[in-house]
């Protein structure tokens, strides 16, 4: 894929799509979005990078190995259920709290950790396919 236009715009697309995917991830609890969709979009962002600048570049941008990323996500999702146990409720019963920021406060809950886990698993899972398929590709 030696397209100049693609290579030139890929970085911009990548950054924009990644930001949008994270935004979608965190708005998910109240507006359309969430970990699955966000993850798909994040994976698409890295795919564009892999498509335009090659898999090594995309892997560097991802920092973690896609499988490791999926594992981290799974671990995050598993851990997010633990507070439920400590409060003597059932596993994966989510908890919410308020973090004061001086002038205002934001609401955070363990579902965010869970959703982040979903996001990581989806990104890692899809990219492990895509990186493999584009790697060692005659260019």
């Amino acid at each position: 894929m030696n397209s100049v236009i693609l290579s030139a715009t890929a970085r911009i697309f990548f950054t924009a799509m990644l930001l949008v995917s994270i935004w979608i991830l965190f708005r998910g609890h109240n507006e359309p979005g969430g970990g699955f969709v966000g993850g798909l979009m994040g994976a698409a962002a890295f795919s564009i990078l892999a498509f335009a600048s090659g898999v090594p570049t995309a892997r560097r941008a991802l920092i973690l190995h896609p499988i490791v990323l999926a594992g981290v996500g799974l671990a995050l999702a598993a851990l997010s259920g633990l507070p439920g146990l400590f409060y003597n409720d059932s596993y994966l019963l989510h908890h919410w709290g308020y973090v004061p920021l001086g002038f205002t406060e934001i609401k955070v809950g363990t579902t965010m950790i869970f959703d982040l886990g979903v996001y990581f698993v989806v990104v890692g899972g899809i990219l492990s396919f895509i990186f493999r398929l584009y790697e060692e590709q005659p260019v």
Partner: protein
Amino acid sequence: MSATSMLLAGLAASVATPFLAARFKRFGGALCVAVAAAMFAFFLSQVGAVAVAPVVDTVSWVPALGVDLTIRLDGFSLLFALLISGIGTLVTLYAAGYMDEKPDFTRSLFLLYILLFMMAMLATVTADNLIAMFVFWEMTSLLSFLLVGFDSKKAEAREAALQSLVVTVGGGLALLAGIILIGVGAGTFSIGALLADSSALVASPYFGPAIVLVMIGCFTKSAQVPFHFWLPNAMAAPTPASAYLHSATMVKLGVFLLAKLSPIFVQAEWFGPTLVIFGCATMVVAAVQALRSTAFKAVLAFSTVASLGTITMLIGLDGELAAVSVVGFITAHALYKAALFFCAGVVIHGTGQPELDRLGGLGAKMPVTRVAIILAALSAAGLPPFVGFIAKEYLFEGQLVSSFAIATVTVAVLVNAVMVAIAAIVVLRPFFGKAPADLHVHHGESPGMYIGPLVLGVAGLVFGLAPWLIAGSLLQPAASAINSAPMSVSFSLWHGFTPMLALSALVVALGALVTLKWNAIHAVLKPSAALERLLGDGGYQAMMRGLDAGSAWATPRFQNGDPRFYGAVTASAVTLLIFYGLLSGDGPLVPTPPDEPFRLYVVAAVVMIVVGCLAAVLAQSVVSAIIATGVAGYGLALIFLFNGGPDLALTQFSVETLFVVIVTAVILRLPLVLGVTRKRRERVYDVGLSLAFAFAVFICVLWIAAAPFNAALPEYFATVSYTEAFGRNVVNVILVDFRSLDTFGEIAVVALAAIAAWALLRATGEKPKPSGKGAPKAAPKAAPKAAPKAASKGAKEPAAPTQEA
């Protein structure tokens, strides 16, 4: 300390100590022995309490399914627990010596298996819930598999391991089915509750089938005819494992369960006679096979099978005395047979010679072992004043007072004569006489290896001389537990001049005769092909061959590697099922669709889908087809969006995008020329099938639209979404909160799929590519057949198909 916590502590210690044994040889090995000894001490401390009433200790496990972890120690369970932990202690001690020359890792692994097996056994015999018991039961099968195949570099060990697993786990499936039937019929899985009141089970129609299924499970585990063949083959295991699993404990699980449930099962009048028939058949088959064997451990293994047959037969006998003879025989047998195996291990370990007739004159090199084996063999032969003698007296007495007297006594006398001969042969051949010239003794005995048999041999003598040591405290509660009514047990050495004494004398006399004529009998029986066919594992081998042949026949037909074929089969089946469902129901085939307002933008989206589909079908190039499919998918996403499913639409858009990206990447690696794998006739069928499938789905969708919409769930979630889960996006709240465990399962699947894909796609680095000649014409089917060498060469050349694109 409660029984449950003791078992859990034991499990933890059983996992931990072998790791220490890998690091610190002596200290760690001693710790392993200490774990087993601690279990023994614990169960010994329970003797007093159990003699009064069963000790019950309940911990809730899976309350939703009614599965709890109840430990119920009655007399019979306690007897087994003592045998398991007691012999387990000696086995760990023995194994440390037996594996002394092996690498640290191997030795520790073996100790780990042995200790885990001990814990699984203890849990099996003490579990009150039948489902829980079954789980532990299967654990013992798995550990037996690992131990039989311990010498995994030997093909025969692997084969024997597989055979033992197939037979015992196959029977385990029958047992599970039987247990489920018991649970359905009785409304409880608790053995204690069943023993207290079995009227519901007996009255239910499942009673008979449940007994048959449980019997099959028990017969496979305890190597009864026709499943007797796996146990002698399992002698491929290291000797400590043979002594422990395949003589003293695990193979007794089948008879354990039969005896335990016998107070319930005897209410079917055919239960007892069936056990007597199979028990006697097993005794005879095993006796004949023992006479045909030459290997030290094989002879002992067949005598074990015969003993198991004896116990099965005894359980089937009616009369109170049978219960006493069952517990007496189990105790005596465990003591002497484990000791005999231990001694066999010392001999084989020291000489490397497994064949009995190549051994001789070892008495001087292994004096203590000789004493131990003489003690054990005298008990095995049923000579006074050993505990084996008392057991045999009770065996005959139980038979004589039962309603099967003549037949069973005849079988028992003949088979026990062979047992006497075996006891004599395994002592005389290796330890007396002259050493054969080619017998090379690598080393003599070591204390770690002769303490075990000596302790067991002496125990056989002590319990014979002083039967009151175990009679009241141990055997009486055990016999009462399987007799379902308390009874008094007089387990004594001297009964006076009784018919049983005469029978014992007859057995010994016959046994002496068989010992003298051992070689002659062996020479007659050994070469018989008919016996081999009849008594060997021919049926099992035929079954496995049939399985292989069946798979070889079915695999290329159902898994021919052509996804179009799979698609056609799947779609045909689904279409047929849908039409069957539609046509078999009442009412019209096509429902009256509800009134929908005409919405132009929805029609536009539908047109987009139709155009996409048509383009995909008609496209000549794969890339165009993929993009066309993507267009259809976007159209669908639009429809989701129009109908108020923004989350779904968003996901669909992303999925379609990634679909195009991924599939494009996939086809970059495949030849671009579409290979045609379907014949012309098949393609005509495919077109018809596609239309029929589409039509079926169309009608289904109409039905879904026509069915009244139940708004209860959406309303519920809309109400509680914010109040309980603090989110306004109901879809996301369901995913991450209400049904988060489902989501967790799904992402686990995604992660596992990713790992699998990562590993599998690695191989495509050497992608198989049709070599030079006629590459573009080659069908995809031919590609995997290309030699890997050609592929690595091909990778350097520019990839022809890609450029053609």
